[in-house]
C-alpha cells in the first residue's frame, strides 16, 4: 500500500480514475449490446448513476441524509416538460432551466433544514418529496396528473441517447471531482465528520450545507430532465419513494462516500433489479435485506471492499 493512498487527495484521485474506467467500459457497451431494450436498461442505469452520485454528495460526503433525490429528478423532468408544453421552449433552454429550478429549490430546502440533523432532516426531506409528488399528481389541469405529460426528445436514436447520458455522467463525475478535491469537498467531509468541530475551525457550516443541497438537487434535476426527454413522458411516478429507496440501495451497496461506489452500485443494482423481474416483485425485499447486511457488515460497500484490497480504500 502506498502511504500516499491514505491522504484525501490520493484517495480521491484513485476513486475518480476507477470511475472513469467504468465509464470507459460503458462507452463500449453499444458495440456489444445492440438490442434497443437491453441498451435502454443500461441507459436507465446510467440515469440512476447520476442520481446516486448526486445523493452520495449530500449523504456520503456532506452527511446530510435527504430522502428527496427522486423528487428532485421528478421536479427537473416536470420543469422541462411544462416549459415545452406551455411555452414550446426548446430543450436547449428547458434542460438548463430544470437544473436552475432544482438548484434553487434545493437551496431553499437546504435553508429549511439548516438546523436539523439525523432523522429529523430525513423526515423533513421525505415530507417535502411526498408533498411535491402529491401536488404534481393532483394538479390535473396543469400537469395532467397521473396521466403524465409528453415531452419533446433530443433525438430518436437510442444509441445517441446512450452517449448523451454517458457524456452527462462523465461531466457530473468531473464536476464532483473538481468540487471534492478543493476546499468545498474538504469542508463537506468535515461537516459530515463533526459539524461542531468544523464550525470551531472556521468552516461556514450553513453555507457548506446549502451548497451541498443546491448542487445535489441540481444534478438530480438534470438527470430527471434528460430522462424525461428520453422516455418522452414524465409522470409523478418518477418521484416515488420507491425510486429514492433504490438510489439509497445503490449507494449503500456500491459504497458510500465514493464516486466509484455510487456509479458501480447504480449499474449493478439496476441491472439486478431488471433481472429479478422474472421472479416477481421481489427486488425491494432483496435490496432492503442487502442494505441491512452492507450497513452492518460492509459499511464501505463493494467498492470499499475492492479498494481496501487494492490500496487501503476510499472513505
Amino acid at each position: 500500500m502506498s502511504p500516499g493512498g491514505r491522504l484525501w487527495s490520493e484517495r480521491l484521485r484513485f476513486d475518480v480514475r476507477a470511475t472513469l474506467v467504468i465509464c470507459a467500459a460503458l462507452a463500449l457497451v453499444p458495440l456489444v449490446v445492440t438490442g434497443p431494450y437491453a441498451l435502454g436498461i443500461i441507459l436507465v442505469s446510467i440515469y440512476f448513476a447520476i442520481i446516486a452520485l448526486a445523493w452520495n454528495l449530500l449523504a456520503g460526503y456532506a452527511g446530510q441524509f435527504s430522502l428527496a433525490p427522486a423528487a428532485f429528478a421528478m421536479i427537473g423532468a416536470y420543469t422541462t416538460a411544462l416549459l415545452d408544453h406551455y411555452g414550446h421552449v426548446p430543450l436547449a433552454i428547458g434542460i438548463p432551466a430544470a437544473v436552475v429550478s432544482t438548484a434553487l429549490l434545493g437551496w431553499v430546502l437546504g435553508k429549511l433544514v439548516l438546523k436539523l440533523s439525523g432523522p429529523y432532516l430525513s423526515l423533513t426531506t421525505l415530507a417535502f418529496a411526498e408533498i411535491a409528488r402529491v401536488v404534481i399528481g393532483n394538479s390535473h389541469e396543469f400537469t395532467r396528473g397521473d396521466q403524465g405529460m409528453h415531452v419533446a426528445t433530443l433525438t430518436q436514436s437510442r444509441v445517441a441517447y446512450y452517449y448523451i447520458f454517458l457524456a452527462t455522467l462523465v461531466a457530473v463525475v468531473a464536476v464532483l471531482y473538481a468540487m471534492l478535491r478543493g476546499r468545498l469537498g474538504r469542508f463537506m467531509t468535515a461537516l459530515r465528520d463533526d459539524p461542531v468541530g468544523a464550525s470551531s475551525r472556521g468552516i461556514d457550516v450553513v453555507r457548506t450545507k446549502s451548497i451541498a443541497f443546491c448542487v445535489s438537487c441540481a444534478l438530480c434535476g438534470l438527470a430527471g430532465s434528460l430522462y424525461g426527454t428520453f422516455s418522452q413522458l414524465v409522470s409523478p411516478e418518477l418521484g416515488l419513494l420507491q425510486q429514492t429507496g433504490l438510489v439509497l440501495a445503490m449507494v449503500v451497496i456500491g459504497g458510500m462516500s465514493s464516486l466509484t461506489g455510487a456509479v458501480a452500485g447504480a449499474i449493478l443494482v439496476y441491472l439486478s433489479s431488471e433481472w429479478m423481474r422474472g421472479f416477481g416483485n421481489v427486488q425491494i425485499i432483496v435490496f432492503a435485506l442487502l442494505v441491512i447486511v452492507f450497513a452492518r457488515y460492509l459499511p464501505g460497500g463493494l467498492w470499499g471492499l475492492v479498494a481496501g484490497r487494492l490500496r487501503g480504500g476510499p472513505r
Partner: protein
Amino acid sequence: MSLLTVDHLSVQFGGVAAVDDVSFDLRAGEILGLIGPNGSGKTTVLNLLSGFLAPRSGRVQMEGVDITGLAANQLAHRGVLRMFQMTRVFSRMSAFDNLLTAGLARGIDETESRRRADALIEELTLGPVRFLDAGQLSGGQRKLLEFGMCFIEPPRVAMLDEPFAAVHPVMRDVMAAFIRTRHAQGATFLLVSHDMPIVVDLCQRAVCMNAGKVIAAGDVHAVLKDHEVIEAYLGEPAEGDSTTGLELAGGDEGSR
C-alpha cells in the same frame, strides 16, 4: 492590556443559572487558568466565549469590539479558537488532512497549509500517525492533533478545555511544551483544567468558579490559597484541618 473582556455574562438552563454574572479579563500574552469543581460552569463559559451558546445577558469584547453572539466560525476567523474536552477532529480524514483542512478553513492557501501541517506534525510528534485516520488515533494523539488544528494559524486567543485529562504523561509533556513555546511567542491562552499542579506551573493568573459564579480571581497562588476556593473543592474544613491552597495544587511555590 486586556485582550478579551468578559462582562457580566449570564446564561440559564431551565431556570438554573449555569453562568451567573461572570466577569473577568484575559490579558494579551498571558495564560489564564479557569478552574472550579465539576459543574461550576467552566465549560459553559467556554461555550459562551467560543460562539456555541448565546448569553442571556452580558457581553464579550475583544480589544474593545463587541463579539457577543458571533457564531463559532466567525470567531475562528477573528482568531478565537477552541479545543474541546471531548476532542473534535474529523475522524475519517488522515491526521495530515485534518491539519490541512483546518488551514484551508482559516483562509490559508493550500501550499502554505501543507507546509504548516508538515511542520506541526513534526512539532507535535505525530509523524508516525500522519497517514492514519483521526478516528484511529489514541485520545492523546487526537488532543495533540486538535492543538495543531488550533495553531495552524496562530490564534489571538486559544481556549483549552481540559487538554491534559486522561492523557499519557509523555504526551502531556509534549502538550505542556507546546503551550510554553507558543506562550513565549506571545500567544494568549484560557486554560480550563482540574490539574492543579499544571495550572500552577503554566498560569500566571486564575479565575475560580463555583455554582456558575466567579468566587476568586487574581494571582494563581493567591486564588489557590483562597478559603472559598478550598471550600468549593474540598467542602467545609474540619476543625483543626490545615489544608492550604498549595497542598490543593499538589506542589510548592518553588515548582515554578
